[in-house]
Each structure stands twice: as C-alpha cells, then as structure tokens.
C-alpha cells in the first residue's frame, strides 16, 4: 500500500517537474545550451579581467589564468573558493568518521586469505597506481583529472595493500600530518594572494604559456596540495573503516 502511494506521489511530482521545467522560457533543450549567454563564455575566452580575443594552445601567454583545461581553470581559479569548501567537506567528514570509528584498535579480518597472485600482483601494481595518481594531479591543468581523482587513486593503492596483506597497517599519524599541512598551505596560499594582490586566492604567479607543464600560476600547486590532502584523507577513512572493536 505504502509503495503504491509513494509511486503515485512520485508520478505526480515527476509530471509536475517535466511540465514545469520544460515550460520555462529560456530553459535550453538538450544539446542546445547557449554558452555565449552564460558566464562560461568569459571562462572560455579567459577575458574576465583582461581584454582577450583568442586563446591558442601553446601560443597565448600570460593570460588571467593559464590552464588549458577549462574545467580546472574554473575549479581552481575562477571559483577556487568553492574548491576550498569542497576540500573542507572531505576534511570534516573524514574527521567525523575518525570520531565515530577511530577509537577502536582491532582490525577487521579478511573473509578469505589473499592468494599468491593478489599478494605478488599488488606489490607490482602498487607503485604504478601511485605514479598514475601523481601524474594525474600534476597534469590537472592540462588534461582531464586533477587533485580529487589523483588523490583517490593514491588511496585506492593503499586499499589494495590492506586487502592483500592482513598485517599491513599504515602509520596514520604521518597521513594526518600531510593532510593538515596540505590544508593549511591551501589557506596560506589564499592569504598570500590577499597580501600580494588584495584578493583572497588570487593567482599571483605568472601564468606562463597555455599548455606548458609549468604554467597556470598557482593552479598546479593547489592541485598537488589537494591531491596529497585527498589521498591522505581517504587513506584515513579506509583505515578507520577497517578498524574493529576488540572484545
């Protein structure tokens, strides 16, 4: 009975949504978004603060933000304050998890013993995963990816070690120190921007040539910090979840 009521209610809400949303003048049909009418046009032309007519890969230099990846330029430069908040969300939820589960000292036992292939294979794959993760967050301003996926990859490598070796434990204190330092540095870079150019989180380093590895000013620095922070936070989360109450 309850299910039928719920379905009826949702069909009603769904009908309202479909008719309501698509009746709005100016709501674009799928595939017909008018980017030119949105703020995104400024992000694509990189002409929010400075007049600029065209951005060319490998040629344009010293733009307001030098990231070749537009999404990164928004995430870590135009709307960097959101990203600071996002990092904080992850920080505080990992903190909450360690308050809830971190007090236990035992470790969950694996259901079945890790076999030879897993044990040996994980040792081979581990450095490769770490390297890919680091590559992804260092190249966040040039290619898809960035601090968050890169950091998750590092944490996944640690999870692999947990699964393959029963006795494996990370030294969580070091990860916490990394997390804390990276987070503090993010805020300090923001404050430096406030001191140097009067705007919190402003891009105060020369942005270089679009497409070069050493370009985009503070973007790669922040993405490396975010990557380290996310990696150590998620490692902390995994470690806390693998703990068990000792009887």
């Amino acid at each position: 009975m309850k299910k039928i009521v719920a379905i009826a209610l949702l069909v009603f809400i769904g009908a309202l949504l479909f008719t309501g949303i698509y009746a709005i003048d100016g709501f674009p049909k799928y595939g017909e978004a008018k980017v030119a009418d949105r703020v995104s046009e400024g992000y694509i032309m990189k002409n929010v603060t400075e007049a600029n007519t065209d951005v060319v890969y490998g040629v344009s230099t010293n733009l307001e933000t030098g990231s070749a990846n537009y999404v990164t330029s928004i995430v870590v430069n135009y709307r960097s304050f959101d990203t600071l908040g996002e990092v904080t969300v992850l920080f505080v939820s990992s903190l909450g998890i360690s308050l809830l589960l971190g007090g236990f000292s035992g470790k969950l036992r694996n259901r079945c013993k890790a076999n030879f292939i897993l044990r040996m294979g994980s040792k081979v794959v581990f450095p490769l995963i770490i390297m890919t993760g680091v590559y992804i967050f260092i190249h966040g301003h040039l290619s898809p990816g960035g601090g968050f996926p890169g950091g998750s990859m590092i944490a996944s490598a640690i999870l692999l070690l947990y699964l393959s070796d029963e006795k494996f434990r990370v030294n969580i204190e070091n990860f916490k120190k990394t997390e804390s330092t990276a987070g503090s540095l993010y805020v300090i870079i923001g404050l430096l921007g406030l001191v140097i150019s009067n705007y919190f989180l402003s891009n105060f380093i020369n942005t270089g040539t679009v497409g070069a590895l050493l370009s985009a000013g503070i973007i790669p620095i922040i993405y490396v910090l975010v990557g380290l922070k996310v990696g150590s936070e998620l490692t902390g989360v995994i470690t806390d979840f693998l703990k068990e109450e000792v009887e």
Partner: protein
Amino acid sequence: MMNPVLLIAIPLLLAFLSIILKHYKSQLLLLGSAVNMILIFGLQKGEYIIGGFKPPFGINLVLDDYAFISILVVNGLFLVINLMSFDKIDKLGTVLLVSLAGLNGMLLTGDLFNLFVFLEITSITAYILSSVSKKYQYSFNYLVLGTLGSGLYLFGLIILYSVFGSLNMADISKQMATANLNQMLIPTFLIFVGLAVEAKILPFNGWVKGVYGNANSLVGPLFASAYAGTMLFVFGRVFVQVLMVSSYLKVTLIIIGAVTLLAGEAAALSKTRIREILLYSSIGQSGLVVALFLSGLVFPAVLQIFNNIFSKAVMFTIGGKMADDTGTDEADELQGAFLKNKLAGLSFTVAAFSLIGLPLFYGFYSKINLLLGIFSLNNFWLPVVILLGTIIEGVYFIRLLVKLWTPGEEGHISTEEYATKFTIKIELAKVIGVVFLSAILIIAGILPGMVRNNLTESGQLLNEESPSYMFDLEGGI
C-alpha cells in the same frame, strides 16, 4: 581595512592546524572565535571579490547591514556558548572551528552555488555534532534528510543557472525581475524545500525531534541559536533579496510557515520534557520568521530571530545541563530545580518571558513591531495566527516555569535529590554566560532604540523601504 574573508579563512586554517596540534583543540577554537569577534569590529561594509574575478564570473562576499548584524550576533553567540560549555568541547574543537567557518561563509557569500558548498559544510558538522548524544539513528535520519534537501536546492539552482546563465545572487535577482515568475515556480519551490529542511519548516523537519531532543548543553544551544539563526538569515537573504516569488506561490509558502507556527506551538503544549518543549517552540518560531520574511517584513523578522536565538541559547544551555547532570529533563521530575539555583532559574525565566513577549523584555519590542508590521499589510488572518501562537506559547512556558520554581509535593519523585545534584554541578562559566545573555534581553527591552539604531544605520535592510511601522517603546510601556 579588514577583508571579511578572514572570518572564514582563519577558523579554517586553525582547523587544519589543530590536527597537528591535537592537544590544543579547544584552545584553538576559543582563539579562532575570539579573533573573529575582534575582526568583526574592524570590518567595513562593501562588496569583496575573491580571486580577483569580478562577479558574476568570480565569487564575491557581500557585507551589507544585514550580513553585518547577522555575523556579529552569530559569532558572538558562538563564542559565548563555547565559553559556557568549554568542558564539553574536547575532541570536537576541529569540527566546531569548521562549523564557524561554514556559518560565516553562509552569511557572507554572494553566490548561490558557494552558498550550497557552505550549507553542506555546516550541515556535515551538524551531523557530527548531533552524534555526540550516541543516538546514531537520529543523526543518520538528519543526514539523509539534510542531503536530500541540499540536493533539491542544487537541482533548483541548476535550473536557474541554465535559464539565466549565472550563479551570482545579484545577477540572478536582476534577471529574475524581468522573468515570467509563474514559470519559475519549480526552481523557487525546490530551493524553498532545500532551505526548509535546515530551517525546520513542516513537513521537512522530521529530523528535529531526535536531534534537538537529545542534545547536550554544548550542542543544544549551538543548534538552537547559531545554526538556527544562520539558516533563517540565509532564508531571508535568498527569499527577500535574490528570488522573486510569484504571488500564488508566496501565499502558499506563507501558509506553510503559519501552519508550522501553529503545529509547533501546539506540539510544544502537549510535551512534558523541557528540551522537547523548547524544540517544538523553535519549530514554531522558524515558521513565524519564514512567514514574516515572505510577507516582506524583514525588520520584524530580524528582530524576532534575535529574540528567538538569544532566548533559546539560554534555555537550551540550562535544559541541556539539567539533562546532562540528572539524566532526565522531565519537567515533573525536576520540580523546584530553580529554587536551588536561583541565578540560572532567573535567566531561564527572563528568556522565557522575552520569548513570550512580555513588557520590559526585548521580546515585547520585537512582538509589537511584528504585529504593527503585519497590520500594515492589510492581512486579516496572519495576525490572528500569530496571536494564537503567542497565547499557546505563554501557556506552556508559564506552566513550565511554575513547575520548575515550585517544590514538588512530599514523597514525590525525590525533588530534593535532583535539585541538589543540579546545584552542585552547574559551573560558574555557565551561570555567567546565561546571566550575560539574559541581561542583554533585558537591556535591549528597556532601551529598544539602541537596537533599532544599530540595525538600521542606513535605514534599510535588504533594500526594504524604510519601514513606517517602526516603533520604540522605552521600557516597553
């Protein structure tokens, strides 16, 4: 010149550092909130850009009169509550620092998506703080409803973005003035639902009972004052300044607010536990404030938020402390508790009287302005609802006060025992804190002109036209 972004950046920096300096978490928390209080007095009103990109492209912080008084009050209450319950902070120091940053961010931001991010930060800290009571199913319930609510907020926001092409509050508000408001029903309603979950509006407040009803003397007052106040201030900002609401939807939403008011007060009347009475009263007050904001009465709404959060900070501190010490907050079992602890009892009484709106207290000033404002709208049913709510409120608070001030009958569940226990354990810091807060309520009641001048230095809050119904009664007489 101080940049208000420091109010967010400094608590965040201290929160990150407190992971390394883990033995000084509570000291860092006090440092952070004290530094924030000092910074607030060095602030200059204006618009502050983050990252150097002009809005609507970048994110900006807006420090107008409305934002200024709200951060002043929220940071002040945050500091006082933490000082009062310093012993309870312990491991929560980092979480509280993050929540301070989140609250300030919500009050200051001028960008709707940035508001979503800070809303999430604040709600996640709230989920963690609520789990201090060890009633995890309630925290879980809160988490699910909160996440769903902010998801719906984001949904509404994205629809606005795809129509207007911007996320900036000022920009959207400008474009909305020329839009067909009847088509904007869905996004407006979705954003209302998203904010209503946190603002405790019916029917989205299923989480409140479990979370507020089990909160201790640190978490309870924080939720009922700093968090609740912030959510209502943000609601006012979004629904008065940013979104234009079509008249039919406005009437519907005002009715939702009025129903919340009556339902909350009626539920409070039927309860016997102190914290349950307080939490239903908080729900009722939220409904009232939402109805006022939607009617366009910004000034009375802000006065009423102050009245509610100052009183609730006092009452939840004392109620939570009783429950912490005696293990119960049944009014019947705590009969006569205030006889043993007169200062705390007096503060509780002042807070209750102010909330009801008796003369000589600040609440009278806010209620009279509120009613005059409503009458100026030519609305015939809203004043009736508000007066009815006030009467119910008066009945249950006076009933509660009578119980707590008079000793129980001989042989009744050992009044003496609970009362004594309560006396021994209440600390000096809490007494000073609650007396301080209730003194503010009395002073503001005797000299309302002071509040008014501070509130409306430029005569305007949120572009509201200079209210003609504003009214000072020295001493409430």
